[in-house]
């Protein structure tokens, strides 16, 4: 198990995630302006950027699972990978809820972004190349930002940019994660 943990970079991944969350929560009230296709700039919490960047080593570690020999393993490595993903998502949700109850609602947005980011990564790696799949979480955030019609919806944007407690956006994030886990466990045709 120790070797699997090292092969998946579990510890470095968690350290980076924790550091990113710490940075994100510390700058929870900070926004950065990013243009949208509709014209007016969207003001996006820096915390969301931190949440997606924090997934970097986790997705990199998961990517290292796609070696030929792991495909013929006699250990349930796919289940462990799924457990790693689910555990990370759960930890993010726990941290997000704690932050929210401590007066930082952006924590919930970060948690939602982490959940969705993991799902999008797993779905993406089933259809595109490794390096592109790693881009998926941040690419997904960028797509949300540029498609936010700030004039029509000044307070909250689509999906990841919705209000922290938006049930619909949470459901979508969880659905994407479940879809991603499905791709992982079914070994949906993967591309290297």
């Amino acid at each position, binding site marked *: *198990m*120790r*070797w*699997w943990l*090292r*092969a998946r*970079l579990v510890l470095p991944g968690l350290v980076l995630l924790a550091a990113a969350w710490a940075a994100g929560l510390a700058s929870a009230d900070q926004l950065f302006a990013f243009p949208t296709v509709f014209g007016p700039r969207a003001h996006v919490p820096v915390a969301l950027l931190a949440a997606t960047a924090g997934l970097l080593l986790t997705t990199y570690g998961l990517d*290292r699972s796609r*070696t*030929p*020999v*792991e*495909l*013929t*393993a*006699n*250990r349930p*490595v796919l289940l462990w990978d799924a457990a790693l993903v689910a555990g990370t998502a759960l930890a993010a949700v726990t941290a997000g809820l704690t932050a929210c109850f401590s007066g930082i609602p952006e924590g919930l947005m970060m948690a939602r972004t982490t959940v969705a980011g993991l799902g999008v990564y797993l779905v993406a790696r089933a259809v595109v190349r490794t390096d592109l799949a790693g881009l998926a979480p941040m690419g997904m955030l960028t797509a949300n930002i540029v498609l936010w019609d700030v004039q029509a919806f000044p307070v909250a944007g689509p999906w990841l940019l919705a209000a922290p407690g938006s049930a619909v956006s949470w459901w979508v994030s969880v659905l994407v994660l479940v879809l991603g886990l499905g791709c992982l466990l079914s070994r949906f*045709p993967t591309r290297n």
Partner: protein
Amino acid sequence: MKLSTEEIIYSYGWFSSPVFDGLSLDIPNECTVLLGPNGAGKSTLMSLLASAAPPRRGRVRVGSWRSDRRRDLAPLRRAVGWMPQDIVPVTGLTVREQVAYHGWLKGMSRAEAWQASFEALRQTNLVDLADRSSGKLSGGQTRRVGLAQTIVHRPSVLLLDEPTAGLDPAQRSSFRGVLSSLSVGDTVLVSTHQTSDLSDLFDSVVVLSEGRSRFTGSAEAFLAHATDSSESVERRAEAAYTAVLKEAP
């Protein structure tokens, strides 16, 4: 241990044409070389035999185990050692740790895998590199690590996909020496597209082309396709290979 495929159909992706369209092949219980041009399907066949990918239809048999029976998968995988064409180092692990990790993935306990990794490194002349990072090896060393990973769990069947690819002649010769000194496996299948790899090591030959078997039989029967029997084994193998491929299916 006997290896065979039964009417396997396999393709990459859902919309591409099949690599194998009903291939049935019996691989003898000895040392076999799998010859074929690039794109013949050798690597694909290897990965199917290793159960790395399930065929769309049909099945793979390893001894009495079948790839389409869930309960047979674990013993089938334990019995097979597969060295793929690309050996991917697990950066962050040393050579010995990488080999042990693969043993552990095959179902060995941690202690067993650790012990066995030393033996595998000894057999592949890698003991001196045991503590080196697996990402800092030369091409030839990486290939030998790949071989060590393959044999660490003492499989009955060895599947070696282009084991000498990318090695210079001296390295190839050295690698063949390591192969011949291995005391594992009663069935060895080595794929190559270089007839120069054919040697006294091999008892039987399978020639694959365009997803079909063009020849399966003993090495002597294969070499008999060459017209000039006075030439060296290498030359005869080349001539026989060309003749077999030219023959109508």
